[in-house]
């Protein structure tokens, strides 16, 4: 590659990923300094790669989801008949794992679900009063357990909106700056799962 000739897309992509050797990196860097088109391409690749890192896993097929919900309900019914809450969770987890062995492609989704159940157990442990509210969370299915943690704070969307509003030509930066820090602070949870 000469410094004047645009590098191929694969090389730019490797450059963005920092997967080129130092001499190649220097040559690409020199080229970028004088080529607006390639700089724009690198910026676009960088944005896209950043976004791809946050690509979610595909949604679960309806039939598998139904199976998992049924198993969770069955396990809960049995527990209510004879077991403590923690024994119920263990049993449900084992049944879920057995179901997932038959569908290895969804092992990751199942693992996430098990993790959610485990986290819910931790929350129940931290808030003993939750136990007195009965086992409705499990009888309603795993999605009931996830709704709490997945609640989206209005401050999250307002902060994102204001981050963008800051860039507009007549934006009142000072006005936005009286709102944004508070929103960013409020959007994060107490448990450290902040997105900012």
């Amino acid at each position, binding site marked *: 590659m000469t410094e004047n000739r645009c590098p191929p897309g694969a090389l730019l992509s490797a450059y963005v990923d920092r997967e080129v050797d130092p001499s190649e990196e220097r040559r690409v860097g020199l080229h970028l300094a004088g080529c607006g088109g390639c700089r724009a391409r690198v910026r676009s690749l960088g944005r896209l790669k950043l976004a*791809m890192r946050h690509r979610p896993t595909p949604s679960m097929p309806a039939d598998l989801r139904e199976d998992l919900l049924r198993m969770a309900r069955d396990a809960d019914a049995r527990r209510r008949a004879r077991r403590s809450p923690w024994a119920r969770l263990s049993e449900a987890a084992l049944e879920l794992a057995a179901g997932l062995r038959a569908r290895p492609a969804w092992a990751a989704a199942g693992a996430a679900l098990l993790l959610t159940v485990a986290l819910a157990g931790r929350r129940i442990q931290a808030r003993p009063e939750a136990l007195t509210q009965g086992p409705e969370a499990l009888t309603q299915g795993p999605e009931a357990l996830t709704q709490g943690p997945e*609640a*989206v704070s209005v401050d999250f969307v307002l902060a994102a909106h204001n*981050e963008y509003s800051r860039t507009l030509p*007549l934006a009142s930066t000072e006005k936005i*700056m009286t709102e944004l820090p508070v929103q960013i602070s409020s959007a994060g949870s107490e448990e450290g799962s*902040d*997105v900012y």
Partner: protein
Amino acid sequence: MSTRLFAAALAAVLAWPPASAAEPRVGAAEPRVGAAEPRVGAAEEAPDASELLRQGAVPPAVAYAGEVSVVTRYGGRTRTRELLVSFVPPNRFRRELVDSSGYTAHVVVSDGATEWIYDRARRRVWKTTPDDADHKLLGPEDELDLLAQNYDARVTGQEDVAGRRCWVVTVRGQGESPAVRTLWIDRKTGLVLQSKSQQGDGTISSTMRFVRVEFPSSIDETSFRFAPPPGAAVVTSALKPGYLELEDARLAAGIDPVHPRWLPQGFVFESLNVLPHGGDTFLHFRYSDGVEALSLFQYPKAARLDFGELPVRQVRLAAGDARVTEGPDGKVLDWPRRGQRVVLVGNLPLETLRRVAESLE
């Protein structure tokens, strides 16, 4: 009476009432659109309004420090907040949000490369990357052109703010009840020392005003550096501001972006961002008419939106129930759509947001 004396007398009449009396005050009756606006003194030719706006749209070329009062009105409530600000060109700044007792509650510091947001009460720090408007799909010049297409900008007078002589520029939207933005731009530096936003019905939604400003030759560099206090938790942001095309977002998020078939007059799609949240991905569509921003959020799950302390009421959309609240940033309209959560945010009338929402179906 000589011509010169007549001109001076006319200028004095047009300049009445004095600037201090014309400045908005909390609790004062809200002026309405169409009320008498300040006019340029007859003895002096006004500069080009669009050129003044270009000046006001970029940070000034001089350092400044001061004290700012921000008043927002929403849902029958009025809230005042105070900021201590300092800035050194091109992009270093410090802003301290001070509560009513004088306690600095939040600090935002940027050295141009890193931006820090510190919540003193929670002892929590967010480290993030300053936004770079050059990466937007709609560049700064394009946005000023969009503003010029959708708004009529005029120099309507001169007034003093914080002891500085300012040009008053009124930016008025189109239509029967247009939104109006008024800016007081420092004549010497181009810094916007006061701004006022009025809704289409004439009520003031917010005012920002420097109550004190100075332009020192230098500001201590340590003001723009930040070291997290011992014991403070530091969260590194994963949210680098992004500006994606629709197709990029489809690849990035793996979900089909929804896109309204109707937008308010003058609004265009600017870009889309992908926001990680709770292991999933929010799509954030950004629309602009050059002055106002409209955000549409699409979340691939029917998660619930927690409105916190904001008052919420139910409204009816063609596709079902929705919830709406009004805060200092405008209205938030939230509704479930085919197993997903959709949220609109904008400082626009509810009917306008409703029409955007219904055009998704």
